[in-house]
């Protein structure tokens, strides 16, 4: 807590505003330390990459930040407010929204409905069981706007499960953006994507980051080099290095870690 308070103003003076911050984050699984002593500062208007070999604990960090897992110790603050004990749905409502490694969509709902489900929580539309679904039509223009931004407008009436893999990921990002999150956490948004889709998704992420903080796990180092302002390298649950791409890529320890297990 004290460390977070010391660092946030420091960074605010020198660089972008820190939105989400973690200090001394640790998570044990039955004696195995998956994440240990991780400090992170995710700043508004930047894209922050979390990289590292397989099993380094990247997804665990994601789960901790969004409270899908409870940290064993450490603190998480959102805009200076402690959210370490806040339940996951509440964290999402506060503006920290994640995507998943496997594309998280509602396969039997239409593409349009996938986005509308995200839009219908504000205003209490989620709890209205006595109204017709046509009450959701009011959300359609905003949903279509989001779908147009990501190039899915033509597929709006198709079941989301019928989309190609790449387009499912894009839909997932559009759904996440529908919540207008303060912090967007993307777990391997490009994994398994073709070259063209990577370009599309990069552009979407860059546009999204102009007005929020983005933290992404990514294996494709070209994407990281191209897209990310700040990189944190994890290895065996601990931070190995942090800095911009030039700093991190010239770090000897990082080279060893990557050549040893995974050359990205």
């Amino acid at each position, binding site marked *: 807590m004290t460390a977070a308070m010391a660092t946030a103003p420091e960074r605010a003076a020198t660089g972008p505003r820190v939105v989400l911050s973690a200090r001394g984050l640790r998570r044990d699984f039955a004696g195995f330390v998956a994440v240990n002593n991780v400090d992170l500062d995710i700043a508004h208007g930047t894209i922050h990459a979390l990289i590292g070999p397989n099993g380094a604990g990247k997804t665990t960090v994601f789960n901790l930040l*969004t409270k*899908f897992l409870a940290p064993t110790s450490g603190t998480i603050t959102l805009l200076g407010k402690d959210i370490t004990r806040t*339940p*996951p*749905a*509440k964290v*999402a*409502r506060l503006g920290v*929204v*994640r*995507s*998943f490694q496997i594309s*998280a*969509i*509602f*396969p*039997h*709902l*239409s593409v*349009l*409905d996938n986005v*509308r*489900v*995200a839009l*219908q*929580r504000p205003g209490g*539309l*989620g*709890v*209205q*069981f*006595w*109204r*017709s*679904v*046509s*009450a*959701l039509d009011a959300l359609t223009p905003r949903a279509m706007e989001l779908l147009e931004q990501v190039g899915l407008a033509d597929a709006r*009436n*198709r*079941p989301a499960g019928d989309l190609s893999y790449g387009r499912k990921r894009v839909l997932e990002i559009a*759904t*996440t953006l529908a*919540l207008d999150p303060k912090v967007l956490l993307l777990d391997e948004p490009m994994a398994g994507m073709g070259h063209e889709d990577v370009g599309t998704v990069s552009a979407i992420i860059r546009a999204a980051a102009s007005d929020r903080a983005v933290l992404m796990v990514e294996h494709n180092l070209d994407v990281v080099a191209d897209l990310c302002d700040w990189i944190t390298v994890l290895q065996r649950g601990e931070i190995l290095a942090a800095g911009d791409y030039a700093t991190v890529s010239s770090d000897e320890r990082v080279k060893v870690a990557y050549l040893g297990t995974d050359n990205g």
Partner: protein
Amino acid sequence: MTDLTLSRESAGAAGPLQWALLALAIAALLAAPFVVYPIFLMKILCFALFACAFNLLLGYTGLLSFGHATFFGGAAYFAAHAVKVWHWPPEAGILLGVAGAAVLGLVMGFFAIRRQGIYFAMITLALAQMFYFFCVQAPFTHGEDGIQGVPRGELLGFISLHEPLNMYYFVVAVFLIGVFAVWRIVNSPFGMILRSIRENEGRAVSLGYSVANYKLAAFVMSAALAGLAGALKAIVFQFATLTDVTWQMSGEVILMTLLGGIGTMIGPIVGATLVVALQNTLATSGFPVTIATGLIFMACVLVFRRGIVGEILARLPERHSKQ
């Protein structure tokens, strides 16, 4: 009303064909007592409503309750007691049954929704068994005898329900209201969230939905509607007995829903009709009913998992280009 299976379309906007079929079905319901024995029809309608209420939970929320007899049978006891002992009018007795079932649903749901899958089913079963033993012991249920000779009374003080046709049309009205309630809930903004929870619970959480609250709300609604069916049955048959709170009753409603088609609007109605008709036929033949229902259950799981209506809808040409 026919195209609501896991609706890929933006539901709620039924086409002219659906309205025509619905009008036809209602007309058939109104004419039926002149062709078929009304008591038999009313039994079917009560169980069909029970199955629809159960399907709200299993088909549209993805929760398998093994304790729904608690709400069906519990509401039957409450309604029967209120009408017979307290001399309440039938509509008030039924409303008490619904309220009682909702409270029981709130308690059972509170404990059960914390667990998933088989554990959820086991907790509902365990709590339903506890309620069964409560009913065996509690004085007002009269144990093995049940509450007998419940007067049907006068609806709103002037319509005698002892008149078979009056009773029948009252049952039809309650049935339609109940099914409409299920349909409305399923095709509402709230129902949309239930579907999204069933499809991908983690994603629903990550979108900020407190999934446990939604599940509990669906559980209570399902319990209340199951209670409506049970209370109605108590008025129709003029008794409430232990049969309706046994675990076999919870199993029967699963069979009806599964046989007709989980997650379809009319599947549970079809399933309930078939099971009740089968039981009535076999009751006079000497062939054990449990063996017949067991065989049907196996056939259903092995051959047509989507249920009768589900299989039919799956074979119809794709219609999601509509809208």
